[in-house]
């Protein structure tokens, strides 16, 4: 086997290219989501996440304040700062640059910053790029400053506000805890059950074993949607109802065929000699399972744990069906789908932050478990191993 596995394929370049493409295909949206989650709604609607590091241009409308009119050289003068005193001061962060301005809504960018615009009747308006302005007129402004339009370049801005809102003020924290409450038992229970079943199906002799294996394989292809309603009715009848216990059992049931199939296939590949040797050494089936097969099956257990964890974590359908609809028991996927996509569909910053919170844990799980996926655990046990 090592001869085949160790051989360098002539198609290595094809493999490498595919891997790079896959990595790019997965990384780009993930990074995009991450970047977006730190941006404000305004910025997200103005430019794509790839422009996040660059300033955003946005048009504003304002009216020069008529307060503080002064007179000099026979002209009435208004001066001030659009960035700090204007109507849009809240949106205009320090560092904003004004690029152009105009005096009518038809041509909002007619004059470059720093030049003078003609207000008619001998009046002029000058707006500098730092937002300071001077308006002068031979007649008094009379409490009504000229209307101005300007295009400002907003500096890139990143904010944790989205996360703050998602985690603390929006009930998402509760949803996060709920998701954990669902996911962890729904990962552990099927592994516990499946490991025993897989050992029996792989290494114990009993009548009907082949049929059982065939049944498990058959269950793999049954869509779970088929079972949703009957299962829920069963839960309601026996008194489990819509509850965490119910969803644990549902996920366990839906995950078991794959778990048994995966683990059995792995266990049946363990060297027969090792298991027979343990039998000669006097170990019972239970001892062989606990002391030999389980430790050696760790890579398979870890793979399935990752599968099941991700699937349960991302599941929306089963959670919708088997959990009650009240706010206190919503999991994150339901929360995102119902609350964020429904009532705040335009609030992309919040959505991105919520999405990122929900994928952070699966990423963490994957990276911490992936070292168990490496091969070579059997090295040294049998010849060539």
């Amino acid at each position: 086997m090592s001869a085949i596995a160790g051989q360098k394929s002539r198609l290595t370049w094809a493999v490498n290219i595919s891997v790079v493409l896959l990595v790019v295909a997965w990384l780009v949206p993930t990074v995009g989501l991450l970047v977006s989650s730190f941006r404000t709604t305004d910025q997200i609607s103005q430019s794509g996440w790839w422009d996040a590091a660059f300033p955003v241009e946005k048009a504003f409308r304002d009216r020069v304040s008529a307060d503080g009119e002064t007179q000099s050289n026979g002209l009435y003068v208004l001066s001030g700062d659009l960035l700090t005193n204007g109507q849009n001061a809240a949106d205009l962060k320090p560092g904003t640059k004004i690029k152009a301005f105009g005096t009518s809504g038809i041509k909002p960018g007619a004059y470059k910053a720093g030049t003078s615009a003609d207000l008619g009747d001998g009046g002029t308006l000058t707006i500098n790029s730092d937002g300071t302005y001077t308006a002068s007129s031979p007649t008094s402004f009379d409490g009504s400053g000229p209307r101005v339009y300007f295009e400002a370049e907003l500096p890139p801005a990143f904010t944790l506000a989205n996360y703050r809102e998602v985690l603390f003020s929006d009930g998402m924290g509760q949803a996060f805890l709920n998701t954990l409450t669902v996911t962890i038992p729904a990962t552990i229970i099927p592994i516990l059950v499946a490991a025993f079943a897989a050992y029996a199906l792989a290494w114990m002799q009993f009548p009907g074993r082949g049929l059982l294996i065939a049944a498990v394989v058959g269950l793999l292809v049954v869509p779970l949607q088929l079972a949703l309603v009957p299962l829920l009715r069963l839960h309601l009848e026996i008194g489990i109802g819509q509850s965490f216990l119910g969803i644990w059992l549902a996920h366990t049931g839906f995950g078991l065929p794959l778990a048994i199939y995966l683990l059995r296939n792995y266990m049946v590949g363990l060297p027969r000699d090792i298991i027979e040797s343990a039998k000669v050494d006097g170990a019972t089936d239970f001892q062989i399972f606990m002391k030999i097969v389980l430790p050696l099956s760790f890579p398979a257990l870890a793979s399935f744990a990752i599968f099941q964890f991700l699937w349960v974590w991302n599941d929306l359908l089963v959670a919708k069906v088997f959990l009650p609809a009240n706010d206190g028991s919503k999991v994150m996927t339901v929360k995102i789908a119902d609350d964020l996509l429904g009532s705040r569909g335009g609030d992309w910053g919040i959505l991105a932050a919520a999405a990122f919170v929900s994928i952070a844990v699966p990423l963490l799980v994957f990276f911490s478990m992936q070292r168990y996926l490496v091969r070579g655990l059997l090295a040294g046990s049998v010849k060539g191993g």
Partner: protein
Amino acid sequence: MADLKLRDIAKSYGEVNVLKDIDLDIKAGELIVFVGPSGCGKSTLLRMIAGLEKITGGDLEIDGVRVNDVPPANRGIAMVFQSYALYPHMTVRDNMAFALKIAKQSKDEINAAVEKAAKMLQLTEYLDRLPKALSGGQRQRVAIGRAIVRDPKVFLFDEPLSNLDAALRVATRIEIAQLKESMPDRTMIYVTHDQVEAMTLASRIVVLANKGIAQVGTPLDLYERPENEFVAQFIGSPAMNLIPGEITATGALSEVTLENGVKAHSSVPTRDEDLGRKVNIGVRPEDFKPAGAADSCFTGKVAITEKLGEVTLLYFEPQGGREAVIAKLPGVHNGLRGTSVTLSADPDKIHLFADGRSLLYR
């Protein structure tokens, strides 16, 4: 310490018979070697003794107790597997202690047993290593150590040396021989396809062929007095030559006239009624010696020679559609290729087989 009795042991997988009518008495302290060609069922027989294969017919007794339905662990046996079968996630110490821990022995007892076995096999400094950090020979020693710690009545070895390279195989073979010597009261059963291992280790060899036992005997018994053509050709290398002929004189010294008219003499006694019987004479390649025409028993043209230094092998051109006759002459012989060579053999080195059975046994 423990006798084994095999009575009419049979093994079949459904309709397919693999072994039948195996009758064998193994005395305590013997080292019995099962040999035979691939697929003759020698490993199956060993696994039946171990309890890993179900016995489908007959009785197996260890120490006078029928153990057909006793699980492997309670038969008082320990087995060394061909593939070592070490537990890869345990250190050498844990590997060796596994059976004792299962048996719930005390820590001190376990430690003492492990240390003793490790010392015997020179494994003391490797006790805390994982199997993957050991060489092939060391792994095999751990496997043997695992058997020793259990202090079994019967040791079972399933081709333990076949995964080792040639040099290591010789060294480990000698270690096993020494091990046997240090435990003279332990019964050992050893399966191999390598006849050198069989000849050197065995107190008795069991040759398995054709679903049954072809012959049981000491190594030299099998070599000098094979019961049948199969054993004659299986033991010894190159295999014994068989040349057809007809008995033309009977008595204490039999005369066989071969196909080419040559008269060969054998010290295998024959009876009057054997006169005219079609037989094969069997001559081992190493029993041939160059001779004049007078007392020859074989003449042929040399097709190939192989010079091995200590001996020279002559392969003669095949005659009458039979396998080529081979002769092994001591020393180096040059210039024989393509020439005609006449060979003879002593009468007590010439075996007689009628219908595949030796005329010595009847």
